[in-house]
């Protein structure tokens, strides 16, 4: 027990050593310490999904996780998806489908979709909606968001001449 706790966490493939306060959330550490502001803070209570990141490959609300709980874990944020100038297939699909309006919910939506497609490479529309139901879009652009996820799915499957993983 102390007021400052050392943690080691892998963020977007890079190991980070940090001293965190017990009451710092993972969200706060990502945004304010690591300047990874793609992950958004909104409701702060797990209702809106804007803060969604992957921890050990699973979508979680980073506002409901203490930073110290991420000790030893692998965290992936929206910043970790593109490689250089090459966007992730989901990012491309969101742009193409016009699934980005104000953009605030987009990182959370995309991270939820990344987790979905990693375990279910060929989701039905209903499965895509269920996977994204923890993310709110107040521009109400859901139709195009779901279309983007379904468009991205075949591009991410390791078949045919796909160039992505």
């Amino acid at each position, binding site marked *: *027990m*102390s*007021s400052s*706790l050392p943690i080691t966490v892998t963020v977007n493939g890079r190991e980070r050593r940090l001293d965190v*306060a*017990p*009451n710092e*959330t993972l969200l706060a550490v990502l945004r304010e310490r690591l300047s990874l502001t793609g992950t958004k803070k909104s409701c*702060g*209570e*797990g*209702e809106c*999904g804007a803060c*969604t990141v992957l921890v050990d490959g*699973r*979508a*979680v*609300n980073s*506002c*409901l*996780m*203490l930073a*110290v*709980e991420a000790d030893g874990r692998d965290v992936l944020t929206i910043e970790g998806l593109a490689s250089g100038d090459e966007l992730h297939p989901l990012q491309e699909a969101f742009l193409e489908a016009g699934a980005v309006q104000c953009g605030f919910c987009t990182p959370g939506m995309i991270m*939820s979709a990344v*987790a*979905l497609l990693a375990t279910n490479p060929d989701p039905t529309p209903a499965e895509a909606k*269920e*996977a994204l*139901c*923890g*993310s709110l879009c107040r521009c109400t652009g859901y139709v195009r968001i779901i279309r983007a996820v379904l468009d991205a799915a075949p591009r991410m499957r390791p078949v045919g001449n796909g160039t992505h993983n």
Partner: protein
Amino acid sequence: MQSFDYARPSSLADASELLVRRGDDAAALAGGTDLIVQMEKGARAPALVVDLKRVADLGDGIERRDGALRIGALACLEDVARDARVREGFPALAEAAGVIGSVQIRNRATLAGNICNASPAADTAPPLLVYGAQVNLFGPRGRRSVPIEEFFLGPGRTALEAGELTESVDLPLPNGPTGSAFCRLARRRGMDLASVNVACRLSAAGELRLAFGAAGPTPILVQDEGEVFLKDEATDALGARLEQMAEATRPISDVRAGEDYRRAMLRVLSRRALNTARRRLPESE
């Protein structure tokens, strides 16, 4: 969030000892989807948070053990909802676990946490009641096992004594063929608390167990037995029997639903759950 001390014990004994020593100053943390929200809102302000996720004896697994399916205290709701043995043998629990919150919530929230939080509307409580679950506890005086129907004492209150922790939940494998189902009414399909929820288990001999959530200060289990439950007919006799079973409920009016509406919907959900449970009874003869 206010400041607090953080402890990450590695054994059940250490975790329990900390909780005893710090009493009401301490809060146990598993998934955190209730506790961290409460702390963010200032509804709870523990001086010490005891993180249970690195306690070696607390598992996140689901395994067959002594005639039961044992769900470890750290098993998250998404894993419970997706587990093939839960879906096959205890579908009402899989259905309930799968409608709580969102994927993000279910990836963190635990089954044990859902019952320890003891919300009258907890979706996993009615299924655990109809399945006759046993809650395995570890505490300063050792281990004990509490039937789920004795676990809930009131809103936010459980049979857990000072320093006691839930170690696992056992779902006894049924002796004969049964069918079961979970039904829930909420204001919208995703991300909402239940206005009312009902779980049902029907045996091939006509033994019916119904459990109601958000219908009183604790989830309520009622039982009856009769040929009438096995027949796929909406007779007055069946209606009267179900009505009688629902008399144990004491719903209130709140932001999610009025008392009368809850009573009416409990009747509807009971019938739906029974019909689904009956359809799921394995074909006999």
